């Protein structure tokens, strides 16, 4: 198994799992900047567990992760992350609340003939406009956030940054851009959403 090290965390990789790339590093760095000691943190769709492993190595948080792929879940566990195989939030009891929820969604606009075989498709396929997974996340996440809880979502210019922000606002989030990174064919940003029940 190939292992990489970033900010003191060791992460196990697998060829059938999305390798950490610019998006992963950006979200991990922003998560470290925004997390506070003792926070209850959830990462949805953790993949190799890169973001979770880096965050918990650098900030003393109480973290769990979810992942749908068995191969990715095995990587995440080998990287020291407490992981549950589930589809987004479906395994959680009503009333389960977190202070910080992280999501690096599958965000590429993907047509039927662009799908890749096997579990790896879950890492990329954002549906026809790239927003299938992120839209579902935004709609469902408020139930699992404490008042003043925070989400950090990685979005690409390929996904439609303004459309994602508008949907977050409609779901009760105060929205700001945390950090961005220009890759050669897309702009990546992390959007921070702070949830206030009073804004609904």
């Amino acid at each position, binding site marked *: 198994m190939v292992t990489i090290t970033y900010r003191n965390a060791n992460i196990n990789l697998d060829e059938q799992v999305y390798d950490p790339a610019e998006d992963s590093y950006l979200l991990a760095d922003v998560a470290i900047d925004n997390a506070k000691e003792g926070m209850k943190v959830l990462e949805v769709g953790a993949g190799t567990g890169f973001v979770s492993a880096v965050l918990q190595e650098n900030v003393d948080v109480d973290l769990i992760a979810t992942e*749908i792929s068995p191969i990715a879940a095995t990587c995440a566990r080998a990287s020291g992350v*407490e*992981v549950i195989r*589930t589809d987004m939030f479906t395994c959680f*009891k009503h009333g389960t609340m977190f202070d910080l929820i992280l999501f690096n969604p599958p965000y590429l606009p993907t047509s039927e003939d662009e799908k890749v075989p096997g579990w790896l498709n879950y890492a990329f396929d954002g549906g026809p406009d790239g927003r299938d997974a992120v839209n579902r996340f935004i709609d469902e996440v408020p139930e699992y956030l404490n008042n003043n809880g925070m989400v950090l979502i990685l979005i690409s210019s390929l996904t439609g940054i303004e459309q994602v922000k508008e949907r977050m606002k409609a779901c009760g989030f105060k929205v700001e851009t945390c950090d961005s990174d220009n890759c050669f064919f897309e702009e990546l940003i992390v959007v921070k959403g702070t949830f206030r029940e009073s804004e609904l």
Partner: protein
Amino acid sequence: MKKDLMDILACPICKGDLVLNISKEDEKEIISGTLYCSKCNEYFPIEDGIPNMLPPELRE
């Protein structure tokens, strides 16, 4: 998985409570076993420390 995950895990189908059955554990956590929903009559396996909370049609 650590035992205290039981505080937050629910059946993914009906959101009801689950019964934990441990086959193997060490001093830190549960390595293998099952989580059972009596209402749905469905078992969710715990293998190599990872609970598999996917409904049967999504598992493989």
